[in-house]
C-alpha cells in the first residue's frame, strides 16, 4: 500500500496527523469524552420503520423500555482519562460497558432526544441532565452529543460530559438564600402594614357585630320578623367569609412556603395586592386608579412573591408622596402587554427620582429613607429576575416616579 503514489502518501500523512490531533484532544481535554458504537440502534430503528412507525418521538415517549434497550445495545468503545476520573474507579477497562449503566431513568428523554437529533441530521445536541457514576452516584452534567456525518455513517458517536454539580448546587443555594431574603422582607413589610391589615379585618367584624345586633332586635320584637333575620344571618356568613379570606391572604404572605412557578394572572396579583394597600392609601389620602388590560396572557411566577413586589413598590410610592398636597396624591397601577411581555407600571405624583440616585436605585443598602434598609428594591429585582423579568424606574411627564416591571408571557 505504501510507497508508490506521492499524493496518496501525503493524504495518508494528513489523515495520520488528523487522527493524532484528534486522539490528543480526546485525551487532553478537561471534559469527559466518550466514543460510542450505536450500530445496533440503527437496526432497531429500521425495525420500527418496517412496522410502519414513523413518529419516533411519540414512540420513544410511550415506550421507555425501548429507549432503555437502545441504551443497552449502545456500547462504550473508548473514553478519555477525564472520564475514568469522573465516572470510574481508576480502571478504564471497567468503563467499556453498555451505555445504560450510566443513564438514570429520569434522563431517558435525553437519550431519546439525542437519537432523534442524530436521525434528523442535526450536527449536535446539548442539554443539562443527570448521569450516573459507576459507584451509583447520580450527578448534574452538561451533556453534548456530536454527530459528525462520517462517524455516524460508521455507527460511531462522540459525546462530551462536563460535571456541573457544583454550579447546580451553588445555584440552588443562591435560590434558597434569595427566597429567605424575600420572606424576611415580606414579614418586615407586613409589620409596616399592621394598621392596614387590622383595619381590613376590623371592617367585616364591625359589620358582623352590627348585623347580629340588628338580627336580635328583629327576633326580640313582639312578632319576630324571621325574613329580616334570615337576610342578616346570610350577611353575617358573607362578612365572616370575607374576614377569613383576609386572614388566609395575610397568612400566605407571612408564610415561608418555597416559591413555586405557576401560570398566574397579573391582574389578579395586582387586585390582591390592593387588599394590603387599601387602608394605607386611604389613611394617606391617596386616590388609587387601576388600569388593568383585558385578556392578558398568564405569567409564570410565584403569586405571593409577585404580590410582594407590587405591594412593596406601591408602599414606596405612597411614602414618596408624603410631601405632596393631599388633593394631588394619586397612585396608578397599570397592566399591559408589549412584545410578548406583560407589563406592570406603578406611577405616583410625588417629587420623582433624583437624577443622582437613579443609577443606584436597585443596589443593596442604597436608601433615601431615614429608617430604610435599602433592601426593598434589590429584592424586588431579584424576585423578578428569577422569573425572567426585569424592573426599571423613570420619571413621568407629570413629574412623579414610575416603577415598571415586565415578565415574559407564558404560553
Amino acid at each position, binding site marked *: 500500500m505504501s510507497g508508490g503514489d506521492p499524493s496518496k502518501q501525503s493524504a495518508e500523512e494528513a489523515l495520520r496527523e488528523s487522527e493524532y490531533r484528534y486522539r490528543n484532544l480526546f485525551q487532553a481535554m478537561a471534559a469527559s469524552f466518550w466514543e460510542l458504537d450505536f450500530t445496533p440502534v440503527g437496526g432497531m430503528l429500521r425495525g420500527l420503520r418496517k412496522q410502519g412507525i414513523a413518529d419516533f418521538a411519540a414512540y420513544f415517549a410511550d415506550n421507555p423500555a425501548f429507549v432503555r434497550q437502545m441504551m443497552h445495545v449502545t456500547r462504550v468503545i473508548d473514553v478519555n482519562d477525564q472520564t475514568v476520573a469522573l465516572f470510574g474507579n481508576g480502571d478504564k477497562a471497567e468503563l467499556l460497558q453498555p451505555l445504560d449503566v450510566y443513564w438514570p431513568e429520569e434522563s431517558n428523554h435525553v437519550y431519546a432526544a439525542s437519537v432523534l437529533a442524530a436521525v434528523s441530521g442535526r450536527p449536535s445536541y446539548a442539554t443539562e441532565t443527570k448521569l450516573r457514576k459507576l459507584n451509583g452516584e447520580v450527578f448534574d452534567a452538561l451533556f453534548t452529543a456530536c454527530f459528525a456525518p462520517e462517524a455516524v455513517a460508521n455507527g460511531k458517536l462522540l459525546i462530551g460530559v462536563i460535571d456541573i454539580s457544583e454550579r447546580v448546587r451553588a445555584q440552588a443555594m443562591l435560590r434558597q438564600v434569595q427566597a429567605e431574603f424575600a420572606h424576611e422582607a415580606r414579614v418586615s413589610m407586613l409589620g409596616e402594614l399592621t394598621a392596614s391589615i387590622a383595619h381590613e379585618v*376590623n371592617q367585616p367584624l364591625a359589620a358582623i357585630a352590627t348585623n347580629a345586633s*340588628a338580627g336580635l332586635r328583629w327576633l326580640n320584637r313582639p312578632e319576630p320578623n324571621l325574613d329580616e333575620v334570615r337576610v342578616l344571618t346570610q350577611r353575617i356568613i358573607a362578612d365572616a367569609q370575607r374576614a377569613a379570606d383576609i386572614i388566609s391572604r395575610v397568612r400566605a404572605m407571612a408564610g415561608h412556603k418555597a416559591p413555586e412557578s405557576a401560570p398566574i394572572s397579573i391582574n389578579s396579583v395586582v387586585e390582591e395586592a390592593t387588599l394590603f394597600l387599601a387602608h394605607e392609601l386611604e389613611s394617606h389620602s391617596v386616590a388609587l386608579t387601576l388600569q388593568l388590560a383585558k385578556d392578558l396572557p398568564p405569567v409564570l411566577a410565584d403569586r405571593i412573591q409577585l404580590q410582594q413586589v407590587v405591594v412593596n413598590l406601591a408602599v414606596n410610592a405612597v411614602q414618596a408622596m408624603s410631601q405632596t398636597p393631599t388633593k394631588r396624591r394619586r397612585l396608578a397601577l397599570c397592566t399591559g402587554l408589549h412584545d410578548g411581555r406583560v407589563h406592570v407600571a406603578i406611577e405616583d405624583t410625588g417629587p420623582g427620582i433624583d437624577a443622582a440616585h437613579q443609577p443606584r436605585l436597585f443596589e443593596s443598602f442604597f436608601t433615601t429613607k431615614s429608617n430604610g434598609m435599602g433592601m426593598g428594591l434589590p429584592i424586588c429585582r431579584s424576585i423578578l429576575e428569577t422569573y425572567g423579568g426585569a424592573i426599571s424606574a423613570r420619571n413621568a411627564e407629570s413629574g412623579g416616579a414610575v416603577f415598571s416591571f415586565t415578565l415574559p408571557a407564558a404560553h
Partner: protein
Amino acid sequence: MISSGRVGADIAGVAEGSLISIIDDDESLRTALVGLVRSLGYRASGFANAEDFLASDQAGASAAIVTDIQMPGLSGIELRERLTADGCAAPVIMITARAEPGLRERAFASGALCVLRKPFAAEALIDCLERALAK
C-alpha cells in the same frame, strides 16, 4: 346585649319613622348599619360617599346623619363643615377606624355629636342616635 323592653321603647318613641342617612365607603358595614337602624324602627338610606349624599335631596330630610370619617373624596369632617355652610343642622355621628392623635378633637370641633371608634357596640350607636333624635 339588647333587651326586648328597649326595642319596644324605640318603636314607640317620638322618632319612629325618622330618616337616618348613613355614609360609609365600606359596603358591608354600610349595609349592616342600614339594617341596624331599620331594626330600630327608623327609616335609613345608605351612601358610599359624601358627594353622593350631598347630591341627593336627603340632607335636608335627614333627622340624623351617621358618617365614616376617612372616605375617598370628602371626609366626614369636611362633610360636616359643608353641611354647616349650607345651613343644615342635622346632628352628625362620626365613626372611624383610626386612632390618630387629634382626630376626635377635630371631629368634635367640626360639630360632631358623637365620635365612635370601629368596631363599636351597637348599643353605643343606639345611644348616640337617641341623643341625636332627642335634639
